[in-house]
Each structure stands twice: as structure tokens, then as C-alpha cells.
């Protein structure tokens, strides 16, 4: 009967809403549909989640020289990210201090200044207020005027190996601690694929919008369970076409049985701050040293050794809480627009120092699986809309996330390790979500 009351109206059943939306009693782990559908929950997420954690805002290669900028978001907050004359990365709200107009209307570019289109208040590329039009006019500002210093700065900006994050929370934990061992290892291994240990965001991203909650993407990018089912047609395409249409060796296996076997190797790790990491050692390791790129891979082997290189070439996947993903050679971000509306942006990158035709091959592979006319990611976002549709059948409101609970173990780092197609990473995500939503 208690269960029945919660199901109908979780807010009345429990004064702490987030608590009542996750049922992890008695070996269960279930999430209430309102966590994905409710406008009040969505609004609370902006305050309790997106305003309190580190959110990815860009990669160093997008800001090669002073004046380079892009616009992006921290939750619902539109921000400008730029490299100033001081060579530093600056993150500020895209909002004039005068009467609130957006000061930047471009997606990316290079500029000396941002000039508000309304009354032409002028800001430097790092956000300092340079000039107020007609400041000393008789109708202007008095000596007592409390003049703003510049655009509102996002209080914390830091990077880990060129990946820039920002936080609206001045008291947020240091970025390096926020990432924790598993997420840092994933990034390190991604960069280890590049001879120069660096990457370059390559060309323009794929951008898509789906009619579903943002947390479906957070869950799915590290969901080892769905691949053989959501992507069944892709598995069949691979069995038929292999590398002849440009997969470029990214999806290992060949037959469906081999692909399934490979995908069930390795492990997943639920990080301390809600991150989920999925890694496995590569199959067909010896083939890397006989093919067209044997010199490239042999140099990596000399540097990292066989054991570590198997994991590097396994190309792990991660969801860094809440909305930053890495998989194959891409950076993915997604941003909440509404409870049932999310934008996903997928940036391919090249490996600095790798052969040019290797990077081009990876780009073609990326295009084939991840594009809106491709054979993979478009089915994922379709499923997110299908999920949202299904949750409108709210008379039964709970989602089951108990896969692999018995098979997981807690590591000394506080992280939890589970099997590849378990929901260990999803549980880590939801536990962190609940902590934040509860104000802890």
C-alpha cells in the first residue's frame, strides 16, 4: 500500500522528492518516471545539478589563438567561452550587464570584442567592460555609478589535459578530484591513441535534437546492454559489409556472435561523482602491427607496452556526469532544453601526429555510425523519444535498473566495478543525481 501511494504521488509521500523517485530498498533499484517527465524536477535539476557540478565547455583545440570563441551552455545558461589576450580560457554569461541582451550571436569565431547590439556596450574578448556608449553624456552616468567590471564570469574554470570544464558553483571540488581515477584513466587512454598525446577537434559537429529527457543520453552512452538490440541492423550491416563501406576497424567482431562476445569483455566503473566508464581490451591486437598503420601502432606499443595498449586501442566509452560523453574518437555533449527536449552535439576529433589518412578513415567511420543519416546514433535518439513516449503511460511509473547488481564490487577508490552489460554505471549516475537533488 505504501508503494501504491508513492506511485501515484511521490511528492506527497516524501518531503524529499528525489529520494522518493529512486527505490533502492531490499535489493531493488528502480527509478520513477517523473524523474524524466516532470517540469518541477527539470527546474530543480538546473539549480541542484547543473549549477553545482563541473560542466564541459570546450576543448583547447577550439581556441587556438587569442580572440577565438564559441558559445555553449551550462544547463540552461548560455555562455561564451573564449581565449583572451592573456592566453587563458574565459567563460562568461552571454548577457550584457546593462539590460540583458545577448552580446554574441555567432556559434564560433574570432573577435577583438563583443559589442552589445542594443546600446553598444563594449566588452573585451575575455569579458572586461571596455566602453559604455555616451557614458559621460549629460544624460549618462554619474560619478557614483556602480559600473560593472564586465560580463558575469562563471566562477570556476579548469581543464584536464585540454578538456575545459566550468562550474557555476564557486565551492565545487577541484576538477581533478571531480573526475576521479576512472574518468581520468579514460581521458588518458583516449589521448594515448595520439602519438603527440593530444587531439584536435576536427571540422563541424553533428547536432541533433530529440524529444526526450537528457538523462536518457547520459544512461545510453555507457549502456553496454542495448547495442546488440537497438543496433541490430548495424550488426547485420557489419556482418555483410565489414570494413568495405568505411567502418575502418572501429567495430570489432564481424559476425553477430563475435561482436556480442567482444562487447561482453572488460568492465564498467561507476565513478564517485556519478561518472560511468566502460572499457575493454581490444580484440585482434596482433593485426594492428601488420596493417597499413603498423609503424603508428608499433610506436604506441614501444611507449605503452602490450598490456596497456590493448586497453588504449579498446577505445572505451564514458559518461562524465552529467552531460559529457566520450566514445570512439568523439566528444559528445548534450544539453537539457526541457523535460522532453534535449540537444546532442557530437564533435569528431583527430589524433595529433597520427597519419592523415588514418584520421580521415576514422572521420568516415564516425560519419557512417554517428550522423543523423547514419546507422547508429540516430537509432539511439529515436529510442530516447520512444522512451519518453512510453513514460506517458504513467499508470505504471517505475523503471527497472537492477541488471548485474549481484556481480558488482566496490573498489578502494570508492568507485563500483561491474560487468560490461550491467546497469552498474546507471546506478552510479542516479545515486549522484539523488545526492545533488537532495542538496547534499
Amino acid at each position, binding site marked *: 500500500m505504501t508503494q501504491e501511494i508513492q506511485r501515484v504521488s511521490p511528492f506527497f509521500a516524501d518531503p524529499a522528492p528525489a529520494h522518493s523517485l529512486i527505490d533502492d530498498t531490499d535489493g531493488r533499484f528502480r527509478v520513477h518516471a517523473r524523474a524524466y517527465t516532470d517540469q518541477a524536477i527539470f527546474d530543480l535539476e538546473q539549480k541542484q545539478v547543473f549549477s553545482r557540478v563541473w560542466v564541459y565547455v570546450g576543448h583547447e583545440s577550439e581556441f587556438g589563438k587569442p580572440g577565438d570563441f564559441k558559445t555553449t551552455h551550462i544547463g540552461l545558461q548560455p555562455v561564451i567561452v573564449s581565449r583572451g589576450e592573456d592566453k587563458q580560457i574565459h567563460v562568461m554569461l552571454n548577457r550584457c550587464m546593462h539590460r540583458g541582451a545577448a552580446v554574441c550571436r555567432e556559434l564560433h569565431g574570432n573577435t577583438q570584442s563583443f559589442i552589445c547590439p542594443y546600446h553598444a556596450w563594449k566588452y573585451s574578448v575575455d569579458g572586461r567592460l571596455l566602453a559604455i556608449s555616451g557614458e559621460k553624456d549629460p544624460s549618462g552616468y554619474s560619478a557614483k555609478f556602480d559600473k560593472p567590471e564586465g560580463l558575469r564570469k562563471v566562477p570556476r574554470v579548469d581543464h584536464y589535459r585540454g578538456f575545459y570544464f566550468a562550474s557555476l558553483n564557486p565551492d565545487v571540488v577541484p576538477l581533478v578530484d571531480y573526475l576521479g581515477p576512472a574518468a581520468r584513466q579514460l581521458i588518458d587512454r583516449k589521448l594515448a591513441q595520439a602519438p603527440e598525446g593530444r587531439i584536435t577537434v576536427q571540422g563541424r559537429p553533428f547536432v541533433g535534437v530529440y524529444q526526450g529527457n537528457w538523462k536518457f543520453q547520459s544512461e545510453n552512452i555507457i549502456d553496454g546492454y542495448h547495442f546488440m538490440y*537497438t543496433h541490430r541492423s548495424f550488426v547485420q550491416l557489419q556482418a555483410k*559489409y565489414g570494413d*568495405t563501406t568505411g567502418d575502418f576497424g572501429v567495430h570489432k567482431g564481424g559476425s553477430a556472435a563475435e561482436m556480442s562476445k567482444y562487447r561482453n569483455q572488460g568492465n564498467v566503473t561507476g565513478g564517485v561523482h556519478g561518472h560511468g566508464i566502460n572499457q575493454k581490451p581490444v580484440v585482434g591486437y596482433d593485426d594492428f602491427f601488420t596493417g597499413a598503420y603498423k609503424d603508428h601502432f608499433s610506436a604506441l606499443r614501444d611507449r605503452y607496452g602490450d598490456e596497456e595498449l590493448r586497453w588504449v586501442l579498446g577505445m572505451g566509452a564514458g559518461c562524465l556526469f552529467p552531460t559529457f560523453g566520450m566514445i570512439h574518437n568523439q566528444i559528445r555533449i548534450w544539453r537539457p532544453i526541457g523535460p522532453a527536449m534535449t540537444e546532442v552535439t557530437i564533435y569528431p576529433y583527430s589524433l595529433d601526429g597520427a597519419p592523415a*589518412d588514418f*584520421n580521415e578513415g576514422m572521420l568516415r567511420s564516425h*560519419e557512417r555510425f554517428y550522423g543523423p*543519416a547514419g546507422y547508429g546514433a540516430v537509432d539511439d535518439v529515436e529510442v530516447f523519444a520512444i522512451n519518453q513516449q512510453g513514460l506517458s503511460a504513467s499508470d505504471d511509473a517505475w523503471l527497472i535498473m537492477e541488471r548485474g547488481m549481484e556481480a558488482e564490487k566496490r573498489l578502494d577508490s570508492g568507485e563500483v566495478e561491474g560487468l560490461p552489460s550491467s546497469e552498474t554505471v546507471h546506478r552510479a549516475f542516479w545515486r549522484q543525481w539523488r545526492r545533488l537533488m537532495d542538496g547534499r
Partner: protein
Amino acid sequence: MSDMNRTITRAEAEELLYREARLLDAMQLREWLALYTPEGLYWIPIDDTQPSGRTASLIYDDAARREERVYHLEHLPFPAQNPRSRTVHLVSNVEVLGVDEQGATRVHSSQVIYETRTGDYTQIGLGEISVAVARVEYLLVRAEGGLRIRLKKILLINREMPQGNLTFML
């Protein structure tokens, strides 16, 4: 002047483009494949100012990839096309712009493509009509049996902006 070297006229180009539109809307995709030359490219760029090696495209299909695209649509059910889309291609503003260095005729057109998913129209994502608006550029050549496409390049007016499900035939 031999027949094969005769200049391609606007009327001939229009006939080919209308036929292509009809084949796409009717999902007669094997016949659509046969419209291309073997080295032909079906291309929907995001940024056509960059070489293909430096940026991803929405579609960058050589012959093998076109064959795969058609096989995928014909034989393998997948969530983004289950249920299916219906489309209508409108082709307009056809102009012959000249002949390139390889002897292919440059043809420009404006196209509007309406698309809707079939199935339970009460559900999210189904039953809505989407519109793709594009300048579509072709390189056409003569071959045995009629004109062939060496390049079809679709420049969507919103190409760098959010795209929905583009798994129907554009």
C-alpha cells in the same frame, strides 16, 4: 557532333531530376542507384568549404556506401525507420550552369522535401511533417541509356544546425 557529346539541355536535366524525385518518393531505390555513375558521389555536407578529409558530412556516399544505404533501407528494420517515412520531393529552379573540366554538366536546382513518419500518429515523433529545404547541385554526364549523376550535393539551408532523423531518402 556525336550524340554522346551533345550539350545537356535544361529539359533533359529536369526530366532526370523529376524522375529521381519520383524514384525516391516511391522507394524504387535500385533504379535510383542506377542513375549514378560508378565513381559518382552522393554528398550532404555540413561544411562544404572544407575537404572531406577534414570534416564530417551528413552523408558522403560513394558507390559502395550508396549500395549499403539502399540495402539497409530495403532489408533491415531499424528504430529510426520503423515505422517508415513517406516523402514528397519538390524540384524547382532548374538551371544548366555550364560544363566542368571533366566534361560534366553543372546543374543547379532548388528542392523542398516534405517527410512524415507513418504509424501511430499519436506518438512522439510520428505523424509530424518535417521539411528539408536545400539548394541541390548536380554534375550530370551522358551514358548509354541516358543521363547519369556524377555528383549530387545537397546544401541544406540549416546544414550546421540541429538535424532530426535523416534516415529517409533526401
